[in-house]
């Protein structure tokens, strides 16, 4: 049974239509992400689930119970805020134990629970510290411990890692994932970072302008996005004009290929289409290198060196459109220069067709 069930959820802020009909089922124990650019309604949706915003229309069920009129303090959810919202006048232990005031536990049991929660996030022994003497990463952990100590059915995370630097963020991503598996609580993560969503989630809902554009597991989302908008938001994709007739597509600059139904996630209809392809699914061949794959020709217009990878923009012969190609910098492989002729290898199965 799904632990969260939203149907027809709408939210207006005055004239602004923040949520335009959200239907969503989230299963117990799932790591679910709401991904989208700022202003897409993902945070509003999280706040609706938490009980900080009332819905204008539609229903929110938490483990089967209608949440209409139920305030945040009576919902089986807890939240990790973007700013962490650590109480500055309390110690770390008091912050973590904040929600236990009404719990039917002795003072000793509460202290033990606080210490256990701190241990779970790797802050054992930090209880006596002042909250404002903590680093960003530590505040993040305190916020997590403070929410998890109440054993919520659902933990809501509002861009929890966006304030951390890159290294720490990557470390926390792995830790959050591990923590979620060990406690088995449903996590709902709001993020604008597509990489973060791909790394951590079981399923991802991509949102644009108050609607869910696509809901899928990370692999499907990356490999078979339903629209150019989703494709561009998640990773990099080049688009070439094409024309489809039956099972065959003619792609400008590449040539003919037959495509299967799963390569047309938005449906297949004869006529002009846009053909998408990911940079890593194209390869530049070294001079004299042979291939069984299909071949196209062009010239390098730009190259960007990333250390482990080099990204090339290649203008294909016979079209104005350019494709981006990423190549691993393996030993012995020469980095091409701007203006060099390029032979591009590609496969029919890598193409994604958009209407």
């Amino acid at each position, binding site marked *: 049974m799904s632990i969260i069930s939203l149907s027809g959820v709408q939210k207006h802020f005055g004239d602004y239509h923040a949520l335009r009909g959200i239907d969503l089922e989230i299963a117990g124990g799932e790591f679910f992400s709401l991904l989208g650019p700022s202003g897409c309604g993902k945070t509003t949706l999280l706040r609706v689930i*938490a009980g*900080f915003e009332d819905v204008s229309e539609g229903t929110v069920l938490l483990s089967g119970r209608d949440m209409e009129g139920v*305030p*945040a*303090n009576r919902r089986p*959810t*807890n*939240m990790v*805020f*973007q*700013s962490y*919202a650590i*109480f*500055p*006048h*309390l*110690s770390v232990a*008091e912050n973590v134990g*904040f*929600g236990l*005031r*009404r719990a039917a536990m002795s003072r000793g049991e509460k202290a033990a629970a606080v210490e256990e929660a701190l241990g779970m996030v790797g802050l054992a022994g930090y209880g006596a510290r*002042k*909250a404002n003497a903590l680093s960003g990463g530590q505040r993040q952990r305190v916020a997590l411990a*403070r*929410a998890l100590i*109440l054993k919520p059915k659902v933990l809501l995370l509002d861009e929890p890692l966006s304030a951390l630097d890159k290294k720490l963020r990557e470390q926390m991503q792995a830790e959050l994932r591990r923590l979620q598996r060990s406690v088995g609580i449903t996590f709902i993560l709001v993020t604008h970072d597509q990489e973060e969503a791909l790394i951590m989630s079981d399923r991802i809902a991509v949102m644009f302008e108050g609607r869910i554009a696509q809901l899928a597991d990370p692999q499907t989302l990356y490999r078979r996005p339903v629209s150019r908008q989703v494709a561009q938001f998640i990773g990099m994709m080049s688009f070439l004009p094409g024309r489809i007739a039956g099972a065959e597509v003619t792609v400008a600059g590449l040539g003919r290929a037959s495509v299967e139904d799963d390569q047309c996630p938005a449906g297949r209809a004869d006529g002009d289409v846009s053909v998408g392809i990911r940079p890593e699914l194209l390869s530049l061949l070294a001079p004299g290198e042979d291939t069984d794959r299909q071949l196209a020709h062009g010239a390098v217009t730009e190259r960007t060196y990333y250390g482990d990878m080099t990204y090339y923009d290649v203008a294909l012969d016979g079209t104005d459109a350019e494709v981006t190609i990423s190549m691993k910098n393996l030993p012995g492989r020469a980095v091409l220069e701007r203006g060099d002729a390029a032979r591009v290898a590609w496969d029919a199965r890598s193409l994604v067709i958009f209407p």
Partner: protein
Amino acid sequence: MATTWTRFRRWTRSDSASGLLLVSPAALFALALLAVPLAAVVAFSFWSQDYLEIDRTFTWANYRAAVTEPIYRELMLRSVLISGAVTIATVVLAFPLAYFISFKVADRHKALWIFLVTIPFWTSYLIRAFLWKVILGFNGVLNTSLQTLGLIDEPLSFILYNPNAVVITLAHAFAPFAILPIFVSLERIDRSLLEAARDLGESRFGAFWRVTFPLALPGVVAAALIVFIPTIGDYVTPRLVGGPDGLMIANMIQTQFLRLNNAPMGATLAVIAMLVVSAISLVFVALSRRWSGPR
């Protein structure tokens, strides 16, 4: 020599030099008009009046008199009590208003509300005290209104020329001083802290009591000090609306200096009043530090 000159030139461009330049006018002003008179008052308090002359021999006699004679003790105690009552009344009334402006008023209207709060400052303090006399008097606005409405038969006499009138007048005069610091401390509270408290199971009132209030406490303490410190030495209001039972220590200090021609005794009472204010304020600050810090 050149290096000393270079160093000096460098120093003139430094932050410490410009800082010194910025504070020195105020510092000189304070030195001339605060520190010097203060030193003079302290010096006077250890001298004595010998008819028209000042006897400059060191003596504790004034302090002995100030502590032993009941009139001084009573006036000092009354000043503390009246001032304490004013402080409590002002802060208790100011907090809800500051809370309202900070939490309920839309951001773009806050400046207007704060502006409205400062309206009492548009007239002089003296005129406001006089106005309260008109409002609270035997034939004043309040009494005639209540009589016309038939709510009372006789004019109320407990509202003018007694300590109540002093408390009412001072509480009104100092309200903006209390509202502003409380408002500032409420404004600084991150609103997500309140959501976090609600999220962690607290009711609205619980969130207020466990988060808003402790975080607003520095503003409340500032407000209390800003009201308490000047009102304890207030002279005009008790003089105008206090009657004989509403007189405070400052009225006695004035009497000593100008009527009784006993500047040393007046100075002594002034020093004692300052010490009492300082002691109470320090205790207050210490207590509030203890409450608002992590427990």
